[in-house]
């Protein structure tokens, strides 16, 4: 009898713990349900569809010459845009953080325009001003340089779309830099350029890399403006997202799925890299 009661007691005592560990609370249920519906299911559908093709067919479609060329145009151009904006975006962030000038608030707001403006509008504007007789395009025409409807146009569109990512990632880190850090470097005899390269830049580099990675992945995914500003001719300036759309137009669903899956996998790797960079950037934080 006593042993039964004590057994019951231990059962009762254990019970809340058990329920805690086995039952999933409501916020978890909602989160998992939502993520499944919005993110995981569509991605799973894409991968499942491409898996039905079989390895040989998948590989053939994924590595077709037109596809390889489209990957090259997409990733190399996006990387170039990311790197250029890594430098220019950092400079813009530096100016916005360090200097007071009339219209600063407006400039600060304008940086975000690529976030807000529909990509088709961006493509329209870029195609207009970079075409042979557009405001900027006509400056290059005498040198035989065409921008709109070439790979350079793709590059310009990617620059446009990725700039705010770098500026907005670097800006808060620059704001956090204490002025005392620079003053300490001066008091130790460091020149302006030594102070910049040895003291100011190193803590900002992880943020710049994160911004470049974010801008790069955004540029890889850009479709709306590129489809307008480029001629989308295979082996010239055709990017992978546009290739997916062209394949769909030709009812080549398998081909579209395969290219889509490749883009998805690359994006996943990129996002892991970005997460890693962000963690790395916090390693010296207090």
């Amino acid at each position, binding site marked *: 009898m006593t042993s039964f009661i004590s057994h019951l007691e231990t059962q009762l005592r254990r019970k809340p713990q058990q329920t805690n560990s086995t039952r999933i609370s409501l916020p978890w249920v909602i989160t998992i349900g939502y993520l499944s519906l919005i993110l995981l299911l569509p991605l799973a559908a894409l991968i499942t569809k491409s898996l039905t093709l079989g390895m040989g067919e998948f590989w053939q479609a994924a590595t077709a010459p037109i596809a390889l060329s489209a990957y090259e145009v997409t990733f190399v151009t996006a990387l170039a845009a990311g790197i250029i904006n890594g430098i220019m975006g950092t400079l813009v962030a530096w100016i916005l953080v360090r200097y007071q000038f009339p219209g600063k608030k407006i400039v600060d707001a304008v940086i975000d325009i690529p976030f807000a403006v529909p990509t088709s509008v961006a493509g329209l504007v870029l195609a207009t001003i970079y075409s042979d007789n557009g405001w900027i395009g006509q400056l290059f025409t005498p040198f035989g340089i065409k921008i709109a409807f070439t790979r350079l146009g793709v590059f310009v569109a990617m620059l446009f779309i990725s700039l705010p990512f770098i500026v907005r990632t670097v800006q808060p880190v620059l704001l956090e830099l204490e002025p005392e850090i620079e003053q300490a*470097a*001066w008091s130790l005899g460091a020149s302006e350029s030594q102070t910049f390269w040895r003291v100011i830049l*190193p*803590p900002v580099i992880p943020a710049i890399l994160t911004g470049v990675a974010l801008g790069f992945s955004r540029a890889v995914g850009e479709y709306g403006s590129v489809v307008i500003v480029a001629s989308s001719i295979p082996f010239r300036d055709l990017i992978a997202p546009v290739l997916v759309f062209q394949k769909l137009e030709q009812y080549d669903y398998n081909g579209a799925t395969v290219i889509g899956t490749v883009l998805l996998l690359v994006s996943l790797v990129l996002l892991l890299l970005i997460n890693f960079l962000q963690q790395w950037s916090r390693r010296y934080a207090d």
Partner: protein
Amino acid sequence: MSITISQVSKKFGNFQALDNIDLDVQPGTLVALLGPSGSGKSTLLRTVAGLETPDQGRVRINNRDTTNLDIRKRNIGFVFQHYALFKHLTVRENISFGLDIRKKPRQVIKQRVKELLELIQLEGFGDRYPNQLSGGQRQRVALARALAVQPEVLLLDEPFGALDAKVRQELRDWLRRLHDEVHLTSIFVTHDREEAMAVADKIVVMNQGKIEQVGTPAEVYEHPANPFVMSFVGEVNVLLHTSPIFDHAHRANPATRFFVRPHDFEVFTTPQGDSVLAKVKRIIHLGWQVQLELTLGDRSSLIVHLNREEFVRLDLKTEQNVYLEPRQIKCFEQVKQDLFNSPADHHQLAS
């Protein structure tokens, strides 16, 4: 190395941060700039460092006019309140920063860093990053970094301000011992009178952009030049000439204000000679000291400090009557009403 500041003024907009400052710092001394916030003490330090340029006046370091010299060429060491360590560099790299800039030979740098790590008692911490150190350790690294380049003068801006009480005391004692070994001309800024007294050879009391008094800790405490210094370097009771304290022997001039430090009272339980009746309102135990809040016959109140033994011997209770006799009263001619706006030209009439 001496520091000579002559007729230095500085304005920020309409705010007069420094008002015609003259100050001589003798070679090898440790000087505290003491004052409330906004008194100009940090601005003065930053002017010596070259982080601010004065509107007027000259700054000389070791008889060399450095007024318009770039901070990089002044050969000063500067320590900041919030350490300002380079977070992406290890302790060793932080300390060697100035030596790397000066392109010293690798072997010299290694030896110097080793000596400095010993000096700041952080041997074995050379490869850590600043975020792996406590506040007190960080400030010691900041000090070693400043000392590494063998500066002519060391300037410290509220160096203990960001530390908790115990570490602050340890570090200030350590700084004093360090200074006794190194004898580097040093100026440090503080708003903490106890810190200034504990560390400095000389204290410069500042208020509203002006120097109120320069003196050793004892001089400043025993012979304050004016009511501001009197009340800034220690607690005071301010008495009016109508106070019952003056009912007996003391002659009280209405144009004079009287200051008595809380520990400058003799307390008796029975009437003595010139003693004045007071009632104990509150007893506050502050460790080795006991603070009494008393009211006098005219209902004015008074703070008196007793040491523990004296308090126990007198066996005081609240609402008890006691008899007071001031040991020392300081008088200053009353020119302005506000204690903290008193100009420097008061005279000390009696003590």
